[in-house]
C-alpha cells in the first residue's frame, strides 16, 4: 500500500512501488487525463507536477511519489480556470488533444518558475511532442497565459 497525495486529496493505492506513476494515476485512481505516449520520457504526454515541478510520470516510479504533492491536469483548476487552460481555449490550441494535458502541465510549471518566459525560454522548456503540430498556437497561448497571470 502506497499513500499518495493527488490533487490535494489523500489516496492509498495497492501497487508495486516500481509501477510508473502514470499507470497508477490512470488505472488505480481513474485520472485518465494524463496520457501514455512513449513510456521512455521522450514525448511529455504524461507530464504531471510533483511538488510543483514538471515530471514525466511514465518514468517516475510511484514509490518515489510517496508523501509528495502530485497535481494532474484534473487538479490544475476547477472549471478550466487556470491561466494556461484559459489561454488554451482562447487560442483554440488543441487539435486531436492527446498531447495537450502534458503540454498544459509542462507550460504551467514553466510559468510558475518564469512568469514572463521569452521565446528562447519556451523553446528550451517545452520539449513535448505534438504530432498534430499545434506548436505555433502553443507558443502564442503561452504568451497569452503569461499576460493573464500578471
Amino acid at each position, binding site marked *: 500500500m502506497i499513500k499518495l497525495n493527488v490533487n490535494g486529496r489523500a489516496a492509498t493505492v495497492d501497487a508495486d512501488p516500481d509501477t510508473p506513476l502514470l499507470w497508477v494515476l490512470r488505472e488505480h485512481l481513474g485520472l485518465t487525463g494524463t496520457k501514455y505516449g512513449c513510456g521512455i520520457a521522450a514525448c511529455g504526454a504524461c507530464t504531471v507536477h510533483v511538488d510543483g515541478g514538471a515530471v514525466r510520470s511514465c518514468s517516475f516510479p510511484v514509490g518515489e511519489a510517496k508523501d509528495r504533492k502530485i497535481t494532474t491536469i484534473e487538479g490544475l483548476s476547477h472549471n478550466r480556470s487556470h491561466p494556461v487552460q484559459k489561454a488554451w481555449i482562447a487560442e483554440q490550441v488543441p*487539435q486531436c*488533444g492527446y498531447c495537450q494535458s502534458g503540454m498544459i502541465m509542462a507550460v504551467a510549471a514553466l510559468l510558475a518558475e518564469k512568469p514572463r518566459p521569452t521565446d528562447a525560454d519556451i523553446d528550451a522548456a517545452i520539449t513535448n511532442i505534438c504530432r498534430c503540430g499545434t506548436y505555433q498556437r502553443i507558443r502564442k497561448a503561452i504568451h497569452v497565459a503569461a499576460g493573464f497571470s500578471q
Partner: protein
Amino acid sequence: MNTVKLRDRSNAAVRFTRRAVLRGGALVLSAAIIPGEGHAAPNPAKETASLTAWVRIGRDGSVTVIASQSEMGQGISTTLAAAIADELYLPLEKVAIAFAPFAPAYRDPVYNWMFTGNSQGTSSFYQLMRQMGAAAREMLVSAAAARWGVSVDGVTLGNGRIAHPDGRRTLSFGAVAADAAKLPVPTAPKLRDDPPSPGGALRRWDIPAKVDGSAEFGIDVRLPGMLLAAVRRAPRLGSKLEKHDADSLKSRPGVVTVLEISDGLIVVARTYWQAKRALEDANLVWSAAGSEFSSATAFDQVYAQRLSSGPFFTHLEKGSASSAMDGATKLEATYQLPFEAHATMEPMNCTAHVADGRCEIWAPTQGVELAQAVAAQVTGLPPERIIIRRTLLGGGFGRRLLADFVKQTLVAAMAVKQPVKLIWSREEDMTHDFYRPAVLHRIAGALDSSGSAVALSHRVVSPSQMLYIFPRSMLGDIKDWTEAVAPPEKFDTMAVEGIIEQPYDIANQLVEQHRLELDIPTSVWRTTGHGPNNFVLECFVDELAAAAKRDPVAYRRSMLRSDRRALNVLDLVAVKSGWDRRSPSGAARGVALAKAFGGYVAAVAEVSVRNSRLSVRRLTMAVDCGRLLDPGIAASNIQGGAVWGLSAMQTEITFERGRPMQLNFDAFEPLRLGQTPAIEVHFVASDDKPGGTGELGPVPVPAAVCNAVYAATGQRIRALPISRAGLSFA
C-alpha cells in the same frame, strides 16, 4: 498477396476514381434509425425522436447531432454539426454531438463506404448536412403547423422553439419531435438562405474537454469489470512465435490469462502495467524465417532494378513524351523518399466486450465500416449484434482506417468473456505499423528554346498504398478483411496522385508505375501519394527553372496559363512572402505549388544553412480550399500540416532484415516546438466547392524547403530525410 477483380465495375469502380464527384441525383435522404440506439442512449429515461439519421430530439427539447466523421483534431465534427445546427436556427453550443455507429446512412456518398479520411469529410458531407438540418427543420415546422391547424407559411424557428405565425404562441422542439419523426422526410428541403456560420471561426466543441483532461480517447475507456491487455508480436516482420513460457507468465501478479496469436502473445491482466511487465519478462522465441528486407540495400538493389526493368503500368499518357524529348534539351533526375510511420500520439488500442451473443467495441477508429465487418468475421455474429462506439482519436493520419487492432482485441475479448482494453506499447505501434512506402522516382523533362517544359515523363517504383483500405465491399469474397488485397492497377492510383493531375500546361506527359510487392505492410499516411510526389515534381520543376535560368515563381507562372486557382495561390504566396524583395542576409527562399485534395496550396520557405544545420526561419502558405467554411479550423489544419511536412523531412523508418529500427520517439523524432518556424497562412477568396484541409498543408513544404536550400547553397536534395544530404534541422 491477393489480387482481385472489382465486384461491380460499372458502378462502384467508377465512383471510386479520385476525381469522381457526387452527382446531383445521388443524394438519398435517409430516415434510418440508428442501430443499437436502445442500449446506446446515454440516458435511457430521456425519450428521443429521430428526424432522419442525423438529428435526435429529446422530449426536453435537447438536440443531438449525429457525426458520421471521426474527430482526430481536424475539426470536421464541429464544421458538420454547425451546418445542421444552423439549419435548425441553433448555435453550435446548444447541440450535443454523438458519433454514429455503423449504418448505411453514414457512408461517404462518393465511395459508398463509412470512413473518415482522404480529406474528403467536408466535400462529401457539408452539403448533405445542410440538407439534413433543413429536412429536420421542415419536419418540425410541419408537425407544429399541424398541431396548431395552420399552414407552414409563417411558422418560424428560433432559440430552440417553433413560433406560431401570430407571433405569440410557441412550442418547444421536444413537444412536437415525436410527431415530426412520423412525417415523411422531405425530398428537397429548402436550405436557409442566411446561414450564419460560414465564414466565421467557430469555437470547436471538443476543445474544453481537451484542456481539462476529461476528453475521452480510446485509451481512456473504462468499463465495470474491465481487464487490461498488452501484446507483443514479432520484432521481425514475418516471424512467428515458436516457443514461449506462457505457463510461468500465468503465475505473475495480476495476470489473468495468456493468449497465443500466430506471431505473438497477448497477456491479459488486472492492470496494464502488470500485463506489460509480464510480457517484457516473457521468454519468447521467434522463428528463424521472416522478412529479409533491408532498407540500406533496397534502393540500390530492389528499387533500382525495378526502375530499369519494370514492368510498368501506364497511369497517364498525353501526347508523346518520348518523341518530344528527342533532340530537345533534356533534364533527368532520380528522387527517393523513405518509409514513414504514422506515430499517432495515442498508440493503437481498442476495448471490446463479446458476450451473450453480442459484441460491443469502443474504438478510436477512422474505419467504422471496416471494423464492423471485421468484427462480424471474427465473432461470427450478425451485423445487428455488433456495435461500434467511437471515442475521440488521438491522431489518425490514415493509420486508424485499418482494423488490425480491433481484430486483435476481439480475440482477447472472446477468450476472457469480459470487457478487455488492449493497449499497444509505443514499440509495438512502431513495429507493426502499415508504413508510408518508400518510393524511387525517375523524372525527366524536355525544354523548348524558351526554356518551357514541353514534356515530362515520370517513372515511379512504389508499393501500393491501397492494399488495406480499398473499400472491401467493392472487392470479391475475401474471408479476412484485414488482409492485404491489391486492387486492379487502374484504380490503384494513390502512388501517382499529384503527378497524374499536375497543374502545369505540358503538352506531352507520361506517368508509369511499377507496383512493387514487398513483405513490409504499406498503406496510406497523411498526404497519401500527394506528399512524396509533390516533393519530386516541385523540386524537379525548380531544376527546370534553374536550367532555363528563370526565376522559380515566374517560371511556374509561365506554365500555368490554364489553371486560375493554381495561379492565384502562387501569386498570393509570392506577395505575402515578399518574393520580389531580397531575402534577409544569410537567408534564401524556395517555392513549391501543389494541387491536392480538392484544393491548391503554395508555400515559400525562407531558410538559412550554417554548419550543416538547416534552419527554417519562416513559412508562408497560400491556400485555396474552395469556399472557406471555417478560417480557424482551416488555418490550424494547414499550420499543423506544415509541421507534419517538416517532420517528414527528418523522420524515417529503416529496416534491417525485416526489423523496423526506430521504435520510439527517441529514434523517430517528429518536429518539436523549438524547431517550428513562424507559419503564416493566407486564404484565397474562393467560391469553389469546399475541399479538404487536413492533408493539404504538408504537401508543398518539403519541396519549398529543399528549393530554398538550393537557393542558399547550390545543393540539390533529391532524397529524404535531409540527413542523407548531411543536414539536420537547427
